[in-house]
């Protein structure tokens, strides 16, 4: 036997390129199908798996087969049909299994390794099965290292391919992933081919059984058939996906809480979802073909017609509200968001029933108004009650004294001393009533009374004279520490006396709970002091119960009071008086030891200063 040279494949470039193209296109097709695998169950899953596996397995197999044909050998080559077909099945089945493992593995790393190993070994099995189908007048020797390398490449490539299938499923990534997968499949194949060394022997080919002669035409044929197959599979996938999307849309349409509809430009309902039935009470059958405009509240009909007109004349979208008449005669508010479909002379609309929302808003608004009114009324009532009390107190004393005075004078002989005393009290009560009135005016208008330069020490002493008797009765002693000379402050004598009286009486009340004794009388300490630019400071200190820290910030609020029957106006009025004077009032307190109220009054400018400015 003439010893011939051992030879290897000499690949024909065109077919090599075709083999690559077929593997990349197949990979792309399988990626299309693989998209749905993680979400599918049961028969749905089997369908998607089958599609992806046929695309992938078919592509791998035909790549391999075209590549085999690309392999030019100096001897004629044919392929056994049965084994060739078997190799195709091996490719499809192992790819399907690999995809299934990965698809159900939820993206875990282990599932990629397992699925990749299985698919890779399957591809290798396919390759070598197909090689075994070769019929040629030569013997094949294998280079073990390259065989091993080809199997490793197959496993690695399959793992990478599966990973890509599940990570680069969408958009441009899919095309990129398909290229990588195609390249990996080719790499495996050509490594496997490099492992094969052919040694020729008797130039006799036994074409037993059916076999295919390896020719370029066969390669082109397989290429064309595979592409056709892939095209059909991709199209199928596309149709399936579209079909699913349409099913989804139908479901969205039926479950939507919003009212969806297609209305002709003339106002005729063409298609509606069941939300309309719930809102209006009419059945879909009653609504389809009827005029939407007739159901619109007559007051809104013109505006609605105008919106449809606008859409018919090219407006891109419209948003409007109108009222619809329900079957039971009630009215519902609908909020429309619509877009035109000029080809069908219709409007697609998403309509929201906002009746409940509007009602809730209306109720909320009414509740708020009632609340505001109630609180205004309460505040007014409180104010009126306290003013009535403040005014009626001196008036009651005045009337009683007047009556008493008349009685004293009517006696025989008249008791002139008592009558005079009662009359003097009348005068005092009258002044007090007028003070109260001006205080109330101050509270409401913050009116600026006439401010004159005054000696605060003098104002203080006058005020104390007014409450002397009251304090004695309450067994309260007043200790004064008045700075002399004291610069003159600028203010309204009556209002400032009101503040001082308020503070002194509050102080004495704060001490009512503290037991006084003749040796340790309840004591109020009053100080005046010049405080430079701040003006004059007056402080009134009691030795009462003090004020809790959490209440310190509120004592000047109107209607805040710690006295069970207090009005909570005294300090609020005092503060407004001092603010209108440009001074301020504050309090310091040691709970259990007593409180000190301080206020400041700005200085009166001296005449020389006034002239200078």
């Amino acid at each position, binding site marked *: 036997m003439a010893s011939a040279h051992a030879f290897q494949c000499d690949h024909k470039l065109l077919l090599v390129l075709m083999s690559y193209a077929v593997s990349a296109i197949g990979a792309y097709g399988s990626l299309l199908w693989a998209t749905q695998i993680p979400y599918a169950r049961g028969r749905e899953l089997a369908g998607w798996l089958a599609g992806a596996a046929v695309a992938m397995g078919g592509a791998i197999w035909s790549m391999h087969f075209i590549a085999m044909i690309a392999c030019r050998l100096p001897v004629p080559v044919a392929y056994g049909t049965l084994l060739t077909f078997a190799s195709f099945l091996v490719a499809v089945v192992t790819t399907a299994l690999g995809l299934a493992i990965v698809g159900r593995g939820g993206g875990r790393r282990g599932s990629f390794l397992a699925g990749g190993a299985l698919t890779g070994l399957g591809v290798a099995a396919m390759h070598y099965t197909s090689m075994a189908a070769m019929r040629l007048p030569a013997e094949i020797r294998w280079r073990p290292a390259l065989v091993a390398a080809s199997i490793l490449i197959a496993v690695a490539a399959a793992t990478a391919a599966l990973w890509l299938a599940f990570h680069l499923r969408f958009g441009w990534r899919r095309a990129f992933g398909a290229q990588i997968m195609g390249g990996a499949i080719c790499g495996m194949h050509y490594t496997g081919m490099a492992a094969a060394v052919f040694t020729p022997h008797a130039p006799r080919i036994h074409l037993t059984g059916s076999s295919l002669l390896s020719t370029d035409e066969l390669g082109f044929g397989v290429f064309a058939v595979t592409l056709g197959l892939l095209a059909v599979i991709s199209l199928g996938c596309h149709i399936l996906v579209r079909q699913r999307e349409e099913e989804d849309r139908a479901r969205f349409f039926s479950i939507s809480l919003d009212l969806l509809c297609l209305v002709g430009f003339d106002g005729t309902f063409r298609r509606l979802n069941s939300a309309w039935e719930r809102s209006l009470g009419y059945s879909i059958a009653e609504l389809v073909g009827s005029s939407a405009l007739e159901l619109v509240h007559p007051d809104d009909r013109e505006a609605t017609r105008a919106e449809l007109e606008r859409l018919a004349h090219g407006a891109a979208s419209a948003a409007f509200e109108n009222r619809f008449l329900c079957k039971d005669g009630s009215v519902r508010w609908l909020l429309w968001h619509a877009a035109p479909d000029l080809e069908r002379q219709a409007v697609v609309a998403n309509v929201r029933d906002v009746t409940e929302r509007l009602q809730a808003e209306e109720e909320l608004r009414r509740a708020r108004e009632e609340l505001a009114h109630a609180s205004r009324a309460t505040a007014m009532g409180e104010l*009126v*009650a306290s003013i*009535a*009390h*403040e*005014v*009626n*107190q*001196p*008036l*009651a*004393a*005045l*009337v*009683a*004294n007047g*009556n*008493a*005075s*008349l*009685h*004293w004078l009517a*006696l025989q002989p008249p*008791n002139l001393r*008592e009558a005079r*005393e*009662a009359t003097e*009290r009348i005068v*005092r*009560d009258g002044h*007090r009533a007028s003070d109260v009135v001006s205080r109330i005016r101050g509270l409401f208008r913050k009116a600026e009374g006439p401010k004159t330069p005054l000696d605060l020490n003098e104002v203080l002493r006058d005020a104390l004279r007014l*409450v002397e*008797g*009251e304090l004695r*009765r*309450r067994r309260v002693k007043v200790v004064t520490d008045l700075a002399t000379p004291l610069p003159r402050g600028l203010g309204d004598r009556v209002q400032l006396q009101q503040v001082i009286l308020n503070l002194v009486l509050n102080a004495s*009340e704060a001490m*009512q709970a503290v037991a006084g004794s003749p040796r340790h009388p309840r004591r109020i300490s009053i100080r005046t002091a010049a405080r430079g630019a701040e003006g004059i400071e007056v402080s009134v200190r009691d030795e009462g119960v003090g004020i809790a820290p959490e209440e310190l910030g509120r004592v000047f609020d109107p209607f805040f009071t710690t*006295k*069970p*029957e207090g009005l909570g106006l005294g300090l609020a009025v005092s503060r407004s008086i001092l603010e209108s004077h440009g001074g301020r009032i504050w309090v310091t307190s040691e709970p259990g030891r007593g409180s000190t109220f301080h206020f400041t009054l700005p200085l009166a400018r001296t005449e020389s200063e006034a002239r200078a400015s």
Partner: protein
Amino acid sequence: LSDVEPVVLVVDDDAAVRSGLESLLRSVGLRARSFASPQELLDAPQPAGPACLVLDIRLPGSSGLDLPATLAAAGFRPLPVIFITGYGDVPMSVQAMKLGAVDFLLKPFREQQLLDAVHLALEADRVARQERAELEELRRLYATLTPREREIMGLVAAGRLNKQIAADLGLSEVTVKVHRGQVMRKMRAGTLADLVKIALRLDLSAPQP
């Protein structure tokens, strides 16, 4: 007992109102004492003679409406009350009248309103005091009866005849008559009708058998 002069107790936290009221009451010949707070009233000795309260509803320390209950709790004898207030509303006046107030006056009030109410209140207190005093006296007299006499008084007041009483108690009719005469003398009852009235006031309606 009744020789003690009546007195009007004024409780108002406003000094001007207090002095005005005091002067007014004195000018018509009434005695008046005034207090700035409920505590001052409680600290003062109880009036010996007829008295009434003129109470401001707004008082330091507590509501004037609560004062009658506070006084009762402190052992003060019940006094007729006239409420006065600088402002009032219907619920407040209803509450005041429910407490048994003689009157509820809004400041500034007409003197006649106040004086009428004060006289009414003092008279009511005088009558109440007198009734209490009489009852005290009857109780004192009743205490001087022997157990047998009390028994017979109860039966007489219940309308039993001497004969029946004698049978009830297993005594002779003469003995019953003697006891009965003692009862009439000790209880200072002139007639049988007087004795029955006394028994009613002493609440002897359920004589022991």
